[in-house]
């Protein structure tokens, strides 16, 4: 009940405030969460635009996202954006597949800040099995996702192991799929929601954080990650986010986003690959790799696939893709001891 009550209070408070006061308050409160929640829309539309152009297959995403923008135009992104999203989706999938293979049917995946991600359905439709897949996001996002799932009962609900049970319009439990609304910065709330999802604290667990940690303060993300390493006996983290931001590109990015009312409180941890490693070790992870997406794009993904996607639209300036990719990273970190060994180097 609490999140709803808070939201109602916010509504009243907003209505009561005069405009100059609103403008001054912008930096600290309600608008940040709202704009963070809105980033889901942007990413989902970008992914759908890429899917429509043939960069990768996702038969489920169109159920969650509209192909038109507010002014009725069809969503399209510049080729370097679609290529970057292709690299991101592909490398995440690579790590998830490797994890599932090692961890076996008892595997557990927790996707934090999931937005309208469709990974669960993509995995199930390809015959993969696991103990449970838990998606977590703000309840304003999970409630919207829930409504889509409810409406597409056959296409989406059909892949659940059990019938879906809804809770308070924000949570859904369906055996191997769970969707819960929680604020990641409140561990007590998150923990209780994970318990409601029947999470097994000893099962081999992969936490996926796709562009999530940067939206909370570094201290908060460290705390969250520490909770994960302490609460779970066998845990790995897969995190995609910005890196190397201490340059002109990073400064321009921060300024551009600030103009939209979007702050990046966790940007300090993204200054360099080294700093990201430090956050991981501080949180209790012992082994892993942190790589920038340019290296991933050039060296870790299938050369054949890469050639294919580069041909879909001719990218007029390769430097643009390289610059973007060099400022994003993928981290895979595990906490030893684990009974499955990824052969990761020490962090």
């Amino acid at each position: 009940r609490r999140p709803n009550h808070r939201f109602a209070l916010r509504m009243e408070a907003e209505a009561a405030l005069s405009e100059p006061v609103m403008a001054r308050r912008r930096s600290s409160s309600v608008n940040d969460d709202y704009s963070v929640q809105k980033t889901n829309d942007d990413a989902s539309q970008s992914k759908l635009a890429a899917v429509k152009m043939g960069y990768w297959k996702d038969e489920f995403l169109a159920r969650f996202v509209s192909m038109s923008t507010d002014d009725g135009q069809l969503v399209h992104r510049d080729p370097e954006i679609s290529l970057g999203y292709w690299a991101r989706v592909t490398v995440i999938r690579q790590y998830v597949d490797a994890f599932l293979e090692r961890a076996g049917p008892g595997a557990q995946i927790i996707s934090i800040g999931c937005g309208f991600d469709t990974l669960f359905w993509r995995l199930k439709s390809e015959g993969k099995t696991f103990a449970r897949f838990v998606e977590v996001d703000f309840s304003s996002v999970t409630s919207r996702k829930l409504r889509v799932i409810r409406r597409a009962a056959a296409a989406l609900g059909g892949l659940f192991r059990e019938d879906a049970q809804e809770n308070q319009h924000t949570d859904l439990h369906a055996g191997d799929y769970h969707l819960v609304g929680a604020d990641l910065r409140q561990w007590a709330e998150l923990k209780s929601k994970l318990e409601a999802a029947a999470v097994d604290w000893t099962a081999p667990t992969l936490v996926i954080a796709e562009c999530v940690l940067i939206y909370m303060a570094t201290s908060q993300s460290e705390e969250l990650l520490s909770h994960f390493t302490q609460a779970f006996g066998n845990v790995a983290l897969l995190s995609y986010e910005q890196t190397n931001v201490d340059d002109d590109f990073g400064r321009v990015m921060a300024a551009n986003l600030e103009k939209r009312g979007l702050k990046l409180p966790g940007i300090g941890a993204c200054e360099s690959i080294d700093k990201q490693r430090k956050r991981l070790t501080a949180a209790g992870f012992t082994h892993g790799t942190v790589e920038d997406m340019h290296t991933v794009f050039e060296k870790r993904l299938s050369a054949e696939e890469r050639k294919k996607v580069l041909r879909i639209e001719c990218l007029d300036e390769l430097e643009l893709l390289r610059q973007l990719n060099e400022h994003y990273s993928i981290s895979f970190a595990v906490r030893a001891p684990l009974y499955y060994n990824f052969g990761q180097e020490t962090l």
Partner: protein
Amino acid sequence: MASDNGSEGTSNTLSTAATVRTDSPTLGASVVMISTDDLDRQIETLRKCELITEQEVKTLCAKAREILVQEGNVQVIDSPVTICGDIHGQFYDLVELFRVGGPVPDTNYLFLGDFVDRGFYSVETFLLLLALKVRYPDRMMLIRGNHESRQITQVYGFYDECQRKYGSAAVWRCCTEVFDFLSLSAVICGKVFCVHGGLSPSIQTLDQIRTIDRKQEVPHDGPMCDLLWSDPEDSVGWGMSPRGAGYLFGSDVSFCETNGVEMITRAHQLVMEGYKYHFGETVLTVWSAPNYCYRCGNVAAILELDEQLNKEFTIFEAAPQENRGAPAKKPQPDYFLMSSGRFIDHPKAEKRTELYRMYLEEHGVLEALTKALAKLNVMEERPANPMEFVVKELGGAVPGAITAPALEKAYDRAMKELDKLRKEHEELKKEYEVGRK
């Protein structure tokens, strides 16, 4: 600055009726008239980043074609001249460029192509350059870039922008027809060869460039394509280009020696520092779009050649935020998973409404109301009291709410309980009576 076309715009009406050979298929034998007053007015409008009418665009493009058709594939240009690289629709940065480089016609300019795409003001940018070209044909030289193409402009924004700003593809069609007439290259004082992209394995001499039939869409391969797509690369010989068109050319390519030029000046590649030399100082890349895509954080450069061909670079940054026009005009640069931020631009009232709508939606209020009203709509026989019906429906939507059916149930239970108690009471009374006897 000498050029093939000898006329200056000094008379009231710009017409080249006496000297023009209109080989253009669309114009036939007619001559397009625009008065200098009209032209100046259009330039003033465009300078404020405002649009001229579609009809004005058509006339301007027709006039531009008349002028461009007389230019050769290798335009002969005199110094002094200021060379500029890609602009890519970054109108306010073009204004900045004119501020640091000097206004037309005081300064002679050579733009190396890529006027459109990616930036948010491709239309205003290209039309301003075109209007300046028509007004001062000997002071403003434009050559073609790989983005001056029908295919590319449909991917990178110019086509969409024309649709958005004019409501149809007519202006885009006019402009792409002008693109076909743009020259492919230039030579300054016989010493500096200028082209958008680079060299071609099929071209060894300037004469070979002159034989190309340029009045067409940029081909997918061949010499004309290579000139607009190739890149210098730190190696030797020719290589496959990762761009999928044109080639990579190395330091040993002998174009300069063969043609008696000292330097090749080109654009086409993003350079963070604004300009960059390759192969010693044989090849130079000039890039004139600062903070490219509003995201790259690079600086821009222009190259001024004086009468003696001495070089002076001017570096400039993106125009400051205050000078960039109303926020309503522009969308935001893309990153991976970032806020669309559109809510920020809405006036206060719209945002409050949006928040309110979301609040209702999240709590299922809109859905419940819609369901109830939809149910009522499809009923064969509608109830006499629709309000009661709707309230009942809504009551059912909230678990644990006090509703008529809920009350009825509670009442039934209470009555049953009462019955039970009555019976019990009767039995106990009987027992007591019996016990008393």
